[in-house]
């Protein structure tokens, strides 16, 4: 025993290691509580996500299926080509209203031939067929006038209510209260389905066809919206990536650190927080009213979204440039590389995964953006496909999120399904882009 040990104050012997003292018990309890809070928060988030996905999928999955009627249609010559010379220009005078009775009559004949009993009047027969069907048949006949006078096997869209019957949206009891459809029509539809003439099958038209008017939900598709969104993403990618990366490299590597760059830096961060609708007003004022670009055009949407995405890309790029160890820059400079060589040969390749990730996240954000597009006219009803790039950038188009917004506002309940279906398409695009971001990061990530 040394003196120091002898002089030390004599402490009471602590309790056994096997018994927890009060402090430890309290500490452990609070730690456990904290973990439970965390777990509960995560669970709540997952639950919300699952609910969202389930509701969207259960509402929207049916939009990828559509009911079609396949019957022999007699394209009577006296109705469709009164002049009789098969001149498409003259035949075009017969509007879609002239075609509907032709199809309806073919359906009546088909039902009679198949021996299905029904007491519907011709108008009710016509009511079972989609308003889109005559337009499609007319287009087909005008493209091939020789069809007139023949009987051809045609596949036509059925009305939204009949389609809804096969998807469970419309029932006999709801039809009784509905002025658009009667239980007798549903009975006939059921008979036709049993017969095999009416089938519900996978519906490519939902992703390829353009939008349709309020009373033809069965014909509405996302074609124009998808093209519009893709065009806008191309504009954003080709503008925001180079501008954003160049700006970040300049600010991070070359700019002198002074008051001016501080002000710029703060303002870039502020821009990221500006509500997106403000960018829409800006786009309306500058690109449409001042620069005279067309309304509803993907080029304008792309420019507005570029402005919105730039801060995101700049912030992500600067963060990944800053994450490159300074020793790499020093090594390059020490070898006699110029500042630019050190940045482009060493720093930029190392920062590339982060830049790509930031860009893709920025793009994904832009893809889902609705508010600014409403202000520049992308909410318009567009049935014409835009042309191929670059010309197509100036044609009117819609965009996926705007299409969702548009459809949720329509009165026909069939649009609920369409809107959810459009959300599914949008989510698929977003998941694809995020997966790409993760993949690129994994692929190009280098360690040092």
């Amino acid at each position, binding site marked *: 025993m040394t003196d120091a040990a002898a002089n030390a104050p004599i402490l009471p012997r602590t309790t056994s290691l096997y018994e927890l003292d009060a402090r430890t018990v309290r500490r452990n309890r609070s730690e456990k509580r904290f973990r439970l809070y965390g777990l509960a928060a995560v669970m709540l988030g997952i639950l919300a996500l699952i609910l969202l996905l389930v509701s969207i999928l259960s509402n929207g999955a049916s939009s990828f299926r559509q009911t079609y009627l396949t019957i022999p249609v007699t394209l009577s010559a006296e109705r469709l080509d009164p002049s009789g010379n098969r001149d498409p220009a003259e035949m075009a005078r017969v509007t879609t209203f002239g075609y509907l009775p032709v199809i309806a009559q073919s359906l009546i004949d088909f039902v009679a031939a198949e021996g299905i009993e029904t007491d519907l009047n011709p108008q009710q027969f016509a009511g079972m067929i989609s308003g889109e069907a005559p337009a499609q048949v007319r287009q087909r006949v005008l493209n091939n006038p020789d069809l007139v006078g023949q009987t051809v096997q045609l596949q036509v869209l059925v009305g939204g209510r009949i389609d809804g019957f096969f998807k469970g949206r419309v029932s006999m009891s709801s039809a009784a209260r509905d002025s658009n459809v009667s239980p007798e029509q549903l009975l006939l539809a059921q008979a036709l389905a049993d017969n095999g003439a009416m089938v519900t099958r996978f519906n490519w038209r939902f992703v390829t066809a353009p939008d349709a008017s309020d009373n033809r939900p069965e014909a509405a598709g996302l074609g124009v919206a998808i093209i519009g969104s893709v065009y806008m993403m191309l504009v954003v990618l080709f503008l925001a990536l180079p501008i954003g990366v160049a700006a970040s490299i300049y600010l991070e590597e070359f700019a002198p650190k002074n008051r001016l760059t501080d002000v710029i830096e703060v303002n870039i961060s502020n821009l990221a927080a500006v509500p997106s609708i403000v960018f829409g007003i800006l786009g309306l004022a500058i690109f449409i009213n001042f620069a005279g670009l067309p309304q509803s055009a993907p080029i304008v949407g792309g420019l507005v979204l570029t402005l919105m995405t730039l801060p995101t890309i700049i912030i992500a790029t600067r963060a990944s440039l800053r994450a490159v160890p300074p020793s790499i820059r020093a090594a390059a400079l020490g*070898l006699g*590389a*110029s500042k630019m060589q050190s940045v482009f040969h060493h720093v930029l390749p190392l920062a590339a995964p982060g830049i790509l990730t930031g860009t893709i996240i920025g793009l994904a954000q832009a893809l889902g953006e609705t508010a600014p597009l409403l202000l520049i006219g992308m909410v318009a009803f567009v049935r014409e496909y835009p042309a191929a790039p670059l010309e197509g950038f100036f044609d009117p188009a819609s965009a996926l999120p705007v299409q969702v917004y548009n459809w949720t506002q329509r009165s026909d309940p069939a649009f609920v399904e369409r809107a959810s279906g459009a959300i599914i398409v949008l989510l698929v695009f977003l998941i694809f882009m995020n997966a790409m971001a993760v993949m690129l990061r994994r692929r190009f990530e280098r360690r040092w």
Partner: protein
Amino acid sequence: MNDMRVVERDVDINELKMKARDVDVFYGDIHAIKNVDVDIEDKTVTAFIGPSGCGKSTFLRCLNRMNDTIDICRVTGTITLDNEDIYDPKVDPVQLRAKVGMVFQKPNPFPKSIYDNVAYGPRIHGLSSNKADLDQIVERSLRRAALWNEAKDRLNEPGTGLSGGQQQRLCIARAVATNPEVLLMDEPCSALDPIATAQVEELIDELRSQYSVVIVTHSMQQAARVSQKTAFFHLGELVEFGETGHIFTNPDDPRTESYITGRIG
């Protein structure tokens, strides 16, 4: 007056490579280096020793203008390389750094292949006209850095996959590949184990035959082993500069003696 003396010395010591006169360095308001004069001879190893924070690394970084990359750093006085002022406005630091290479404290190979690490300098300076030339430069540099035997079969593997000592030798190979005239080494062995340190020291001794080497070190034993000239820095001042043997056995200044006997620092 002072200049006259410099010219005189320049004449009688023919091998003088770099010359620093009245060098002061400021980091913002901090006076980091105070009025330092040092002569660096050709084909000689010059060691800078001194306690941490004494300014030896700062001074080393003045010799190839690496301090230019720090915004708040200001250097006054004259430093010449072959009688040309390296701080002259006409001098491009990029060109200077090709002549005055640098090896850093922490091995910092590029995250590229061993070959590309060594070939980078020659490539950006256009030292080779074709692939065969470049191959030769890479081999010669790796041999000079005593890494060829270990690396020749894995030239395409990443340089970051080597061990610490090998990485540092790779960095030396990378620095000598550009054919510098002066090689600055900032504590090249501080991150290495004794065996790797011994290899690097051996290497420094060999490099002396072709280059003028300046090494900053914390280890007085290392300075004694590898250098011919030693400069002792203390609190930003150059306390003593002379033959290594002289400094270590018979220092003129009491502070030097205190440091090498372990009383300060």
